[in-house]
């Protein structure tokens, strides 16, 4: 029998399959479809200090083998997440969850983590995934993720707000992602996750205007998979901390490619939006697929 377990910053998870933030809500809605405890864990919707509606609609545009989104971090705000979302999740999910946090200033990132970490829901949280790479918000968001110094400043600000592992989610919209990853590692990040979406756009031929109200959006889906693999491969060679791979992963075979590129675990994003059962299917297919390619356990050597 193959062993799908992996270690993620000192926490052993049953398998490396992790639905990505923004594609899985706060989990409980998918729990109506299947037992989400089959997952390694999942990263919940990016949470900010204040409630956010996000950008104007349209926020979605279809692309070849992918989609653009410009949601812009819609979320009910950290206090509501602690009061409403996490207690609801607690009833259906019994594993450590990955708390995805966003901010518009280093202080905000720190404050969101502080409130979660000091809340009565803190025990549910296994890791904090700090999103410094959202392409759809102005001021903050991606700007933190495209400059090593700014990335380092975020890590510095959040590093001592919690004893839990901190994962920095990186942007692919950079010349050299390893430079950003190294800056995060140097400041004490426990892991990095990549790639967030690639910035793209589409036009509506009838109106001759951008489809997205926000003009540009983030590209996800199988289209970005080769770029994600390359960046995971480069980053895994450049840092000693774990690298969580994501970007267009849609099958157990894609998970194995990511692991071969050096990923310690794999997030599944857009696939959940096209097939609500995608992550469950990937978890189910993984052992058989590992066997098919002679892989008994992770890491793949």
């Amino acid at each position, binding site marked *: 029998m193959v062993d799908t377990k992996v270690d993620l910053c000192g926490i052993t998870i049953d398998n490396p399959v992790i639905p990505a933030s923004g594609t899985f809500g706060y989990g409980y809605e998918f729990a109506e479809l299947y037992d989400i405890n089959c997952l390694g864990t999942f990263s919940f919707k990016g949470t900010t200090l204040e409630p956010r*509606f996000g950008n104007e*609609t349209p*926020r*979605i545009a*279809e692309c070849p083998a*992918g989609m653009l989104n410009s949601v812009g971090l819609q979320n009910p705000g950290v206090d509501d997440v602690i009061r409403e979302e996490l207690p609801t999740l607690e009833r259906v999910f019994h594993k450590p969850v990955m708390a995805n946090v966003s901010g518009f200033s280093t202080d905000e990132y720190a404050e969101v983590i502080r409130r979660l970490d000091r809340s009565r829901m803190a025990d549910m949280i296994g890791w904090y995934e700090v999103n410094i790479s959202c392409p759809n918000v102005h001021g903050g968001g991606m700007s933190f993720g495209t400059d090593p110094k700014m990335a380092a400043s975020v890590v510095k600000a959040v590093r001592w707000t919690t004893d839990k592992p901190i994962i920095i989610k990186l942007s692919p919209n950079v010349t050299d992602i390893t430079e950003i990853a190294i800056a995060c590692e140097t400041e004490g990040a426990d892991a990095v996750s990549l790639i967030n979406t690639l910035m793209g756009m589409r036009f509506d031929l009838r109106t001759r205007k951008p489809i997205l109200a926000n003009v540009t959006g983030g590209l996800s889906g199988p289209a970005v998979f080769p770029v994600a693999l390359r960046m995971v491969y480069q980053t895994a060679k450049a840092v000693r901390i774990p690298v969580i791979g994501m970007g267009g992963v849609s099958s157990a075979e894609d998970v194995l490619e990511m692991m071969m590129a050096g990923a310690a675990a794999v997030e599944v994003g857009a696939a959940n*939006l096209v097939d*609500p059962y995608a992550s469950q299917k990937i978890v189910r297919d993984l052992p058989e697929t590992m066997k098919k390619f002679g892989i008994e356990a992770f890491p793949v050597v």
Partner: protein
Amino acid sequence: MKQGIYTIRENRQLTPTTWRMKLEGDVSGIRAPGQFINIKLDGHFLRRPISICDADRDGITIIYKVLGHGTEEMTHLAEGKNLDVLTGLGNGYDLDDAGERPLLIGGGVGIPPLYLAARCMKSRPTVILGFNNSDEIYYVDEFEKLGARVVVATADGSCGVRGFVTDAFRELSEAGETFTHFYTCGPEPMLRAVYDRVYIKGGISGQMSFEERMGCGFGACMGCSMKTANGNKRVCKDGPVFRTEELLW
């Protein structure tokens, strides 16, 4: 929501731009008129959300308009082909509010969900159907077969009332007609006009079905959010039907 494989039993053209497709498969996920289904098409990443026109033990009927490559390719799908479909999506119309004299207002591609609503209503509805011109008219007979009273409006006056659905509503009001509640679906400009004339000026409460570009169609991606009096809502999951009282217009 239910995911299932559905078999195409009919796929025929109703007007130059409108087609009807009948899908055989599990309908247990469908709870109310106004809900929609989300169809996976080969070669397209996102599913195609299409409102339910009718549903019975045999399956689901949808009516779709050819707008882009996806819907254009749908017209070429042969009977017998299987499709991966998510059914019973969204919250539909609440028919308990219909009262004795319900009014249904549909514009163009917004007409189909009103058919199942009309069929499920206890009291006889008045149905206003708006089209650009007589070539685009469809389903008038079907509504009448349900016992509904149908009023057609065409923008170019080529059939029925000249003008928009709101002009047809004005004529009915001027003739002394009153209504207990309304249900509508159509392009946003029409919804805004209906909101203004029927709800605000006419004083009739109603339920309006909205369209928005969707990612998942089942509430996960926050792609189709809308601000309402009750906070941020997802058109795909909390809607597509919203009550006039919820709207911030």
